[in-house]
């Protein structure tokens, strides 16, 4: 989830902050070192000066008693003048101390300008032991002062005669030197303090951003309804996923639309949430469950250990889902699941291709009656491969604008006048061969390409017939009518052109996809309201439903070609067709017989009083519109 660069950025910022903290302390130490250096130099320098004054004191003292000699103010003045010369901005007091027999320090000389001491006045120094130590060791000492006016340090210089200390020259230094050093260093320190604060703020902001980023990513990668990962997450992890370690399963809740339409979308949401919970409770932490869209889920099953138990996991989910009773608003709902499983991801170049395979298996599971798992295997590999090829071919044809329509006339059985033309889709191959729909339509069913193709066909037909006076019949599936884009496209093109709309017949094939007759009639109503006509295609075989035909108020009933082609050879078929025609007439619908491929069929249909006919015997589908029928 977290990119390496995010951590690197934080690490770099922390590194910088630590570096600047180090620099700050380094400068502090440097400041201390500079201070010590200055002090050492000062001591060195003062020792020379004090040495000169020591000579003076010893000179006036001679062999006499020191106190007695210095009692003389004139003598004191002479030496104090020299002491006063030592005073500077940073040197506040200079004086000469003497330790009397009672171990009291007394001023004998004071070169200070301010706070001048009297001769022989007692002096109580702080850290007296250091002063006494100077007396005993005869070595120069320094006393660092703290919280004492503005004094920072005192230099004690022993005045010796014959190796014996007779007094201490003392110099009190102000904090000036320290202040000077601080002044020198302070801007640099301040710079680093500002820099550390700035970097700290930057780290703080980065950390805040880091957490916000996590939160946003979390929202970005989770489906708010089911709280499981969404498709964005799949895109995020796909490049870094080791396909060798995963199987992919595509789940689809069977007849979920019926739930939405029957109980409402709120119930549909609850069903999705509940099912997601069931899925989650039956997978492991290492598996990745993704809501792929609508009622579709993708499960990336981590293949742990030597045995791949992806199928068992799918089986468990399938069973648990069908056993789970979802209670909502006094309703008890059970759901079933269709699963497409693909385990050999290592053979795929990327996850998208693997998901396509699982999706094609899901499609097969749906085709085979739902509530089952279809596992990709060698046996169905060929189907899958051709599926892929079919999808790719159509996609390419759409991109290259190689989709065309042929038009076959539907003629009046009585006078062979052309009622309308049925538009039939064709693809022109790379080598200019015409590819018929049975070669590609089965493979693109349920794919987005199917919708794109339908839209393309509608475009072609609308352009061809918009400005003519001819009628046209368009094949459209129930699934197409469920697609909002396609419905919008039809409405946009026909709602403002009722004359054109009235020349269009939509041929709808009854199929198992019509799960809810109410929705089916609603969609047909839209087309009716536009002024278009409806034909029920291939009636008489497959999913023929008399009630549905009546409900949608169809204008035409197209008798299935499989019946028509046997009408001259099979009396039972003849009877069925006869009854269909009777049913249509009684219900106010016109009948169209397709697959009229011979004179015999044509003649028999005439006897049955079919309204319209269509077939190779009358006219083949052609790219250009046939104006007249010649038998």
């Amino acid at each position: 989830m977290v990119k390496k660069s995010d951590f690197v950025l934080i690490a770099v910022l922390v590194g910088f902050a630590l570096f600047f903290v180090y620099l700050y302390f380094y400068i502090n130490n440097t400041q201390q070192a500079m201070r010590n250096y200055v002090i050492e130099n000062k001591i060195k320098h003062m020792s020379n000066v004090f040495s000169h004054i020591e000579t003076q004191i010893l000179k006036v003292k001679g062999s006499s008693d020191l106190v007695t000699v210095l009692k003389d103010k004139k003598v004191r003045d002479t030496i104090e003048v020299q002491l006063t010369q030592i005073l500077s901005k940073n040197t506040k007091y200079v004086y000469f101390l003497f330790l009397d027999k009672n171990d009291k320090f007394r001023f004998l000389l004071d070169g200070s300008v301010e706070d001048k001491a009297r001769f022989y006045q007692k002096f109580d120094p702080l850290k007296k032991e250091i002063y006494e130590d100077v007396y005993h060791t005869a070595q120069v000492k320094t006393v660092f002062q703290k919280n004492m006016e503005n004094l920072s340090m005192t230099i004690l210089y022993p005045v010796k005669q014959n190796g014996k200390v007779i007094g201490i020259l003392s110099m009190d230094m102000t904090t000036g030197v320290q202040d000077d050093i601080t002044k020198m260093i302070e801007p640099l320190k301040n710079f680093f303090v500002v820099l550390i604060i700035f970097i700290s703020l930057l780290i703080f902001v980065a950390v805040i951003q880091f957490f916000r980023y996590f939160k946003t990513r979390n929202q970005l990668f989770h489906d708010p309804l089911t709280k499981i990962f969404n498709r964005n997450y799949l895109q995020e992890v796909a490049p870094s996923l080791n396909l060798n370690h995963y199987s992919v399963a595509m789940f689809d809740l069977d007849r979920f639309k019926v739930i939405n339409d029957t109980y409402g979308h709120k119930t549909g949401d609850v069903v999705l949430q509940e099912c997601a919970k069931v899925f989650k409770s039956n997978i492991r932490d290492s598996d990745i469950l993704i809501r792929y869209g609508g009622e579709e889920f993708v499960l990336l099953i981590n293949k742990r250990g030597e045995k791949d138990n992806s199928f068992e996991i799918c089986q468990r989910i399938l069973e648990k889902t069908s056993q789970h009773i979802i209670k909502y608003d006094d309703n008890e709902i059970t759901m079933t699941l269709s699963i497409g499983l693909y385990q050999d991801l290592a053979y795929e170049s990327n996850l998208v291709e693997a998901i396509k395979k699982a999706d094609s298996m899901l499609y097969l599971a749906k085709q085979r009656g739902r509530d089952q798992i279809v596992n990709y295997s060698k046996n169905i590999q060929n189907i899958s491969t051709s599926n892929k090829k079919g999808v790719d071919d159509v996609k390419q044809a759409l991109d290259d604008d190689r989709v065309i329509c042929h038009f076959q006339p539907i003629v009046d059985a009585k006078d062979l006048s052309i009622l309308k033309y049925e538009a039939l889709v064709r693809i022109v191959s790379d080598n200019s061969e015409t590819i018929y729909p049975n070669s590609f339509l089965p493979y693109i069913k349920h794919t987005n390409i199917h919708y794109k193709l339908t839209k393309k066909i509608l475009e072609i037909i609308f352009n061809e017939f918009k400005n003519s006076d001819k009628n046209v019949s368009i094949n459209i599936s129930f699934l197409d009518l469920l697609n909002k884009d396609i419905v919008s496209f039809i409405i946009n093109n026909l709602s403002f052109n009722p004359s054109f709309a009235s020349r269009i017949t939509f041929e709808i094939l009854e199929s198992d996809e019509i799960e809810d007759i109410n929705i089916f009639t609603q969609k047909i109503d839209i087309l009716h309201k536009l002024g278009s006509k409806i034909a029920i295609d291939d009636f008489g075989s497959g999913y023929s439903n008399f009630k549905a035909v009546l409900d949608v108020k169809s204008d035409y009933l197209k008798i299935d070609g499989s019946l028509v082609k046997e009408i001259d050879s099979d009396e039972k078929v003849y009877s069925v067709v006869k009854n269909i025609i009777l049913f249509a007439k009684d219900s106010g619908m016109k009948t169209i017989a397709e697959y009229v491929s011979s004179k015999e069929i044509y003649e028999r249909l005439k006897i049955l009083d079919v309204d319209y006919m269509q077939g190779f015997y009358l006219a083949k589908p052609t790219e250009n519109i046939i104006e007249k029928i010649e038998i």
Partner: protein
Amino acid sequence: MKFLILILLSLSLLLGNQSGDKLKMQILKNICLSIKSENKMKIWSDDINIMKSFKESDKFVTVSNFNDANFIILTKKIAFLTEDTDKHIFVLNYCLLEYIPNSFGALFWKKGRPNIVFIKSRLEDQSLILSDKLKPYIEEQIW
């Protein structure tokens, strides 16, 4: 940044001054506790801060009227002080030892350090006895 440094400096100076005053009070109190006199010590000072500090302590008796006091702490020479007074006078300036003949001791700052001086003859005259720890500060005379 400069503002921050200025605030810190002011604060440290303020604290520094406070610690100087505190030290002075502490020494003064120690001195008072280390002096034995015939009568119970009733303290008065011309410094309001000293009075306040002594009042806060239950070890001392302070009086607000100079006349009621027998132990005076002075920062300067005051007009109504007579030379024949029988009050014990402790000063906070070395020079005041000269100006006030009755003053028996002083606490003052010399070269930035606190210094204490007691004049032996005056202690004896006033029958004041110092504890042993104050004895090193006794001087024979004012220098």
